[in-house]
């Protein structure tokens, strides 16, 4: 259990140190090293949980089981690779004059602050602390979205703050209702907010109150996932912030919000016995999936394009978790991994492409593959991966979702297929000209560190070809936990 305390202490120490370090280059290095240590601690924790099973810390404050341990490892991994990319990238931005040293200090400190909030969301056992950490993640990143101080970024950050803040306030109401339902049966005291205790006694909780609480929790945390119609902050916040911020917001924060919703769903299913929570999630997820796929066609900004792609995939995952069958849950967990890896890789590439072309508008970005093949190929392969082409991992997970839907709700499968088709078309119609068009004048190659992109895409390819044994085991254990049965 020391590993889990380490995972929380490292980002905390990192945040404090980075708040004091003034030199940006050194700050970048310290950032990378903190993330590396956090990754090591998370791997240690993962091994621990694999061998010994779910672990509860003393005082029942922290709880690690197979569901959140792999998310912790994923968070640490993506955090590390993004920070490797972010060092030279932010240095380049500083040279270009878009940020100064003071703002970079805030950036690095809040990077670690954000990682701390993420780890806390994933490892805490207390539903109230989960809420506090989620709000903390919003607060840590909101000043970073407006880092460039352009009018658009200030507007995006304000929208992000207000919409997510209000949404999360509803989630707090849901948490209060949850606590209320629990107190009725479990008595007053800190125990009534612990997930482990609630999960054990789920059947005893009053169904009416739980249903009401779940609606509030879904709407609240759903705002942070980016479910339509609560998604309005997402394209703005992900596109106006610095690229490393977009990468970790898209790759990590959305996952953690979905994790919170699934944890609540597990409680509500135990209490209600019916499929209501699942239907709600399916409804929101399907609508998000279809609406986002349609919106992809209208985009003119490259980062907004991929933000809508994030909304689409999160909608798909919510839909799959909503179905709730073992296959669907397995698919959703797998998709969380592949999407996170692919999306963060894409955003890194997109950031470089925007730096190369000097703008984020897709009509102005041309001829990437000719100017700098690494970026061009990276973008092409990344988009191919995220659109769901075999043999990449996203194809495998989407395929599994389709199978699961066909099994339980065959009439919804055409909708999914149409959505996937529309999204594919939307992504590629923009991509074609960006990658292959004529080179505009004065476009030269820039120094770029594309190793993180290549590692991520290679991992996604590997996952698409064959899921390694331990990972498959992990997923099926988590599936067992969430849906009550294993897919195998």
């Amino acid at each position, binding site marked *: 259990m020391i590993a889990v305390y380490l995972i929380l202490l490292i980002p905390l120490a990192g945040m404090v140190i980075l708040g004091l370090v003034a030199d940006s280059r050194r700050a970048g290095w310290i950032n990378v090293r903190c993330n590396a240590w956090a990754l090591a601690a998370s791997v240690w924790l993962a091994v621990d949980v694999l061998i010994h099973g779910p672990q509860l810390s003393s005082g029942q404050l922290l709880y690690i089981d197979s569901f959140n341990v792999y998310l912790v490892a994923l968070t640490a991994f993506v955090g590390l690779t993004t920070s490797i990319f972010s060092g030279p990238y932010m240095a380049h931005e500083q040279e270009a004059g878009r940020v100064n040293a003071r703002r970079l200090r805030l950036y690095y400190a809040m990077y670690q602050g954000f990682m701390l909030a993420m780890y806390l969301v994933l490892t805490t056992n*207390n539903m*109230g*602390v989960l*809420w*506090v950490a989620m*709000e*903390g993640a919003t*607060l840590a990143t*909101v*000043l970073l979205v*407006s880092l460039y*101080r*352009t*009018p*658009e970024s*200030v*507007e*995006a*950050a*304000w*929208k992000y*703050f*207000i919409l997510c*803040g*209000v949404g999360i*306030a*509803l989630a*707090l*109401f849901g948490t*209060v*209702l949850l*606590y*209320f339902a629990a*107190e*009725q049966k479990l008595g*007053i*005291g*800190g125990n009534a*907010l612990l997930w482990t205790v609630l999960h054990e006694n789920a059947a005893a909780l*009053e169904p*009416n*109150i739980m249903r*009401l609480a779940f609606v509030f929790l879904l709407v609240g945390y759903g705002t942070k996932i980016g479910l339509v119609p609560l998604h309005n902050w997402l*394209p*703005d916040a992900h596109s*106006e912030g610095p690229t490393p911020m977009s990468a970790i917001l898209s790759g990590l924060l959305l996952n953690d919000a979905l994790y919170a919703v699934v944890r609540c769903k597990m409680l509500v299913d135990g209490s209600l016995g019916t499929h209501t929570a699942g239907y709600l999630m399916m409804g929101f997820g399907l609508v998000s999936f279809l609406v986002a796929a349609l*919106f992809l066609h*209208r985009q*003119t900004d490259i980062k907004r394009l991929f933000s809508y792609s994030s909304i689409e995939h999160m909608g798909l995952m919510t839909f799959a978790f909503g179905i709730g069958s073992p296959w669907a849950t397995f698919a959703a967990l797998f998709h969380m991994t592949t999407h996170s890896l692919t999306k963060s890789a894409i955003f890194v590439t997109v950031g470089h492409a925007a730096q190369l072309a000097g703008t984020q508008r897709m009509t102005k970005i041309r001829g990437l593959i000719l100017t700098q093949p690494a970026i061009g190929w990276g973008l092409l392969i990344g988009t191919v991966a995220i659109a769901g082409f075999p043999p990449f991992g996203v194809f495998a997970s989407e395929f599994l979702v389709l199978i699961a839907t066909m099994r339980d709700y065959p009439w919804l499968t055409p909708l999914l297929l149409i959505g996937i088709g529309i999204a594919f078309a939307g992504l590629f119609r923009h991509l074609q000209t960006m990658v292959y068009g004529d080179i505009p004048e004065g476009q030269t190659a820039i120094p770029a560190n594309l190793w993180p992109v290549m590692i991520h895409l290679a991992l996604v390819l590997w996952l698409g070809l064959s899921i390694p044994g331990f990972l498959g085991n992990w997923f099926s254990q988590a599936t067992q936990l969430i849906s009550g049965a294993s897919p195998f």
Partner: protein
Amino acid sequence: MAIAELSLYQQAVLLLAGLIALTSFLMLGQSRLVRLVLVFAIQGILLAATTAMVAYALDFPHLFISAGLSFLLKGILIPIMLQRLIYRMGLHRELDTIEHPARVMMGGAFLMVFSYYVSLPVVAHSPLVTLNAIAVSLAVVLLGMLLMITRRQAVAHVVGFMSIENGLFFAAVVSTYGMPMVVELGVAADVLVAAVVFGVFFFQIRESIDSLDVDRLSKLSEADKP
């Protein structure tokens, strides 16, 4: 239980709950920012008083700490911060005109009825005496949201946001007699940091669009731009 059967202190809790709902309505109708923040401060103080009354009447000593915390934070600290910001930005002479105040008030009354309807299943099967007030707490949350929707000044948005948090805290007090201390402290810390970040934001917004009328923040949209 009908109100006549409760003890005097419990009646006082319900009376204070009614007054908190009144402050929410008053905030909806305030067009001057300084007075808006003042009414918000009164709401915070009433909230602290209600918490203290519940702590005394129903014998939950740990709620006294929550009462003190919310009094300090929401009755004093955040209103003072907001007032100073208002004076620094020169907003104390501006009028944030509310379009159609009558419609807004009717909307507020409708939201109160709606929150009563929503909380019916919660209240039906519980013996807690103060639980009637949970409809009021949900109403305060929804009225805070209505406040945010009907205003254009960023400061009014922040007051609405804080008022939502007030409603949530109130819900926790009347239904669960306060959340566990660690959660309360976390929420209080979040609220404080949020207030500070909002303060920073006002200056950023002012720098970029030269006013705090957030209707002017409309550069990002879905429509194709020329």
